[in-house]
Each structure stands twice: as C-alpha cells, then as structure tokens.
C-alpha cells in the first residue's frame, strides 16, 4: 500500500509543515543504519590487522620507492618542491554565494 502523507495532512486539516511531526522521525531507523555501519567498520579493522603485510604508510616499499632521496619521483621528500606542485592545493572562499541566498530570504541550518 502506498502511503500518501499529503492525503493524511489534508484530512487532518493541518497546515503544511513537517515540523509538526517533531524531530525524531528517523532517529530509530538511522540508529539501525548505524549498526550496519559498525559491521563495515569492523571488517575494515580486521583487514588492517590481518590482511596487510605492512600497517604503517612509511613501511610500504612503494612509498620508499617514490620518496627515494636519490632516484625517487618525489626525491625531495614529503612536502618537498614537487609535492607542493602536484599534491598540495589551495582553497576557495565560497561564502559569498551562500550569503546572497540568505539575503534573498532563504533559510539554512547554519
């Protein structure tokens, strides 16, 4: 059976606005989804402990190869010149557009 809330709300003669339903609508279901997440998390830690030969990034032979001070592609080391060019970035202030939306009267949670 398809549940149609729009029908319910009209039948109740209630003004529109889901806020009347309170804030705990999905709490229960979200909690069960989080059990599900715990199962995936557990599997991750199990793989970390049992499946991987090395457990620290600095022990990975391919990390030693790429950062090799003589022949490595990133021979000037982590945060070196080449890393800065390829692997680091800068960020962009995106607040103006949001402020403009707020000025137009839109409301957000923060």
């Amino acid at each position, binding site marked *: 059976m398809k549940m149609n809330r729009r029908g319910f709300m009209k039948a109740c003669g209630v003004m529109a606005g*889901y806020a009347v339903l309170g804030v705990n609508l999905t709490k229960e279901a979200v909690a069960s*989804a989080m059990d599900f*997440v715990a199962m*995936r998390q557990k599997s991750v830690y199990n793989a970390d402990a049992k499946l991987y030969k090395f457990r*620290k990034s600095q022990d990975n032979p*391919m990390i030693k190869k790429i950062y090799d001070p003589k022949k490595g*592609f990133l021979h000037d080391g*982590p945060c070196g010149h080449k890393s800065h060019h390829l692997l*680091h970035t800068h960020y962009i202030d995106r607040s103006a557009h949001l402020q403009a939306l707020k000025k137009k009267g839109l409301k957000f949670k923060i």
Partner: protein
Amino acid sequence: MKQIEGVMYQTSAPKGKDPDKLFFVQVDADKCEGCGSCEEVCATGAIQSINDDDIHQVVDPAACMNCGQCLVNCPYGAIYEGVSYVDEILEKLKDPNTIVVSMPAPAVRYGLGECFGAPTGTYVGGKMHTALRKLGFDYIWDNEFSADVTIMEEGTELIQRVNEQGKKDARPLPQFTSCCPGWVKFAETFYPDLMPNLSSCKSPIGMLGPLTKTYGAQETKIPGKKIYSVSIMPCIAKKYEGMRPELDDSGFRDIDATINTRELAYMIKQAGINFNSLPDQRPDPVLGDSTGAATIFGNSGGVMEAALRLAYEVLSGQRLDNPDIKVVRTHEGINTADVKVPGFGTVKVAVASGLDNAAKLCDEVRAGKSPYHFIEVMTCPGGCVNGGGQPLDPEIRASLFRSTVAQINKRFRARKASA
C-alpha cells in the same frame, strides 16, 4: 535517467562545466511524499520544503555539500544523482587509443560485495581488482597507495606546523584533515576564515590523479595525454571534487571521471561478470601497493590513526610496536584523545563524524579555544564506509519506510483522538 542499484541517476558526464552550478543530488518531485527525513539528516539545510505539499528540493547547489546522506535516508527513494560517467567510461574502455586506469577508494572494497549478496562489510578487494581487469581497465592502480602518500604528506605537514609554533608566519593549529570533499566544501562555504587550518594536502584521489599522469606515465612509458583516469568512490561529493578546475596540476585534467560503488557494481553486472566466482588479484604494484594504514581511511578516525602511526615514530624517534591506536576509532559523534608520544609530550586530537559535529569543533577554533593539534572530519556518519555512494541495504530502506509510516500514523491517530 537510469536505475543503478536501487538509485536513479541522470546519465550526464559534464565536461568543462562549473561544478558549483550542478545538482549532484536532487529530489524527484513526483516521488517525494514530503516526509522531511532528508531535511532532518542534512547538516546544512540545503534540502528543504518548497511548497504547501512539503515537496522537498535541494534549493541551491551552493548550500549542498553533495554528501548524499539525504539520498540514502529517503524512505521513498525519491532522491536521484545528477551526474554519472558510466556511459563515457564504457566508451573509453572500448577505445584502443585510450589507456584507462582504475583508482578505487579504500571503502569501496567493504561495500561492493553487498551488491552481489555478500554479508554487510565483506572485504572483496581481490575480486574488485580482478573485476576491474575484466572490465578492460589497462592499469589497476589503487587509491590506497595514494592514501599512504597522503599520510606521508599530511603527517609531515602536521609535524612542520607543530614545530613552527611561536615563529613568524607559522601556519596555525589545529590542522584539519582535507580528504573528505563534503567537509572541504563545507569549510570553504561556512568557515572560510579557517581555511589556513585546513591541511594543504589534496585528498588521496586528488593526489593519485596527477601521480597517474606523471609518475604513472613515466613508469609505464605511456604519454600522460593518453591516460583516462577513473576515480571509484563510496561517495557522491567526490564527483564534485574531481571536477574542481584547480585539479589540473599534471598538465591535464587530473581526474577524468568519477563513479561510486553502486555504479561499479552496475558495470560489473552489465558486463555479465560473475563476481562471486572471481579469483583474488592484486593491483599493479607501483601505484597500487598499500598498507593497513591506508585501508582504515574508510572509517571515521582512520586518517587520524594512520597519521599518528607516522607522527609517533617521527616525533619520538622510536618504533611504534603496536600500530593499533584504538582511542581514536569513531563510530559516531565527536571523539577526543590525548596521545602520549615519548620525547615530545601529548598530541591532542579530535575526530568529528558528521558536519553538525564538525561545526562544533570549528566554532571552538574560531573562538580561539580549541586545544587540539589535529582534527579529522568526515561528513558521513561513521566515515566513507557509510558514504553516499555505497550500496543501499534494502532492509535499511524498508526500516526507514516503516518508521516514517509509523510516526505519521501515530501523529494522525493522536490528532484524531484530540479532535
């Protein structure tokens, strides 16, 4: 529109478009029942009621962090993805002049199996690599390798910042992680004053893209311009990240296409590959081999733990005998810890799961009251394993549906009784 593992996708692979103008997630108004579950889980309030029927919409891309938590929590399956590169990737795989490389994220291998009937969380990394080879990817590289690179870069940056304190032009503490694209856009939008606290490191995929077209090109003797790089993520927001105009440091687009776990499962099924009977294979080593520190990136607290496994050894000059740093492992909410490092003192860290929690830590930093050296933020509760691009368990959606209906019925009866 195409249905992919229970989610609708608009099959557009936008080229040269401004990602800030795209809806990566939107509501199909015809399917929306106005229950408001999406609005409740959205940290920014980007998704909200637009009319008297309570039909919900993402009102503007500027307010949406593309996390997809609304999508995975909609009991009616009314929310769709706006961008899918699947068709373009299938074309590139057929083109003999294009070298297609795969770059799967850690968390994908803990979700993909579920699309083929495996129990929740089953590790299918070996089968995933084999399936990618069978699909015709020319090189099987791995975002776990670049997660290890990220630790080297970001851990080193943290140590530099710690040592700089008190000096002129010191970069501020705490340092925030920068691997989660929902969080990075959130910081840029709501806390731009804290951008100097954000690690300057690109995310693991932000690093693997350019490494593929430079280092990878050098190692395989294939010109970078022939390489088409495919990011495979548990995430929707990574599609936005892949399109960031500044990610072209290799001299090309660093990341050509981004898909998520659901789309990879779809491609494997469409190709008629019997996933469950596949043998386990390894990625191609040079940009593929990884460690346990890389695989835990998929969990909230994982980047923190992996970084501490490096920072401990560098700061103390001693070997860390037991790499388990369980105090930082985070299931939900905010987790804080003091980690004692011999010869250095105490490293104070915090892990936030969910942007509402991140905002609390940001407010502390803004007020100058944050005691931490290092803060990890993941937008999705529990981390990437619970990302917006992961398979949806049919049971979870059914239980969302049941609880929504039950709540509405309860209110309905209460109102009738009091009328």
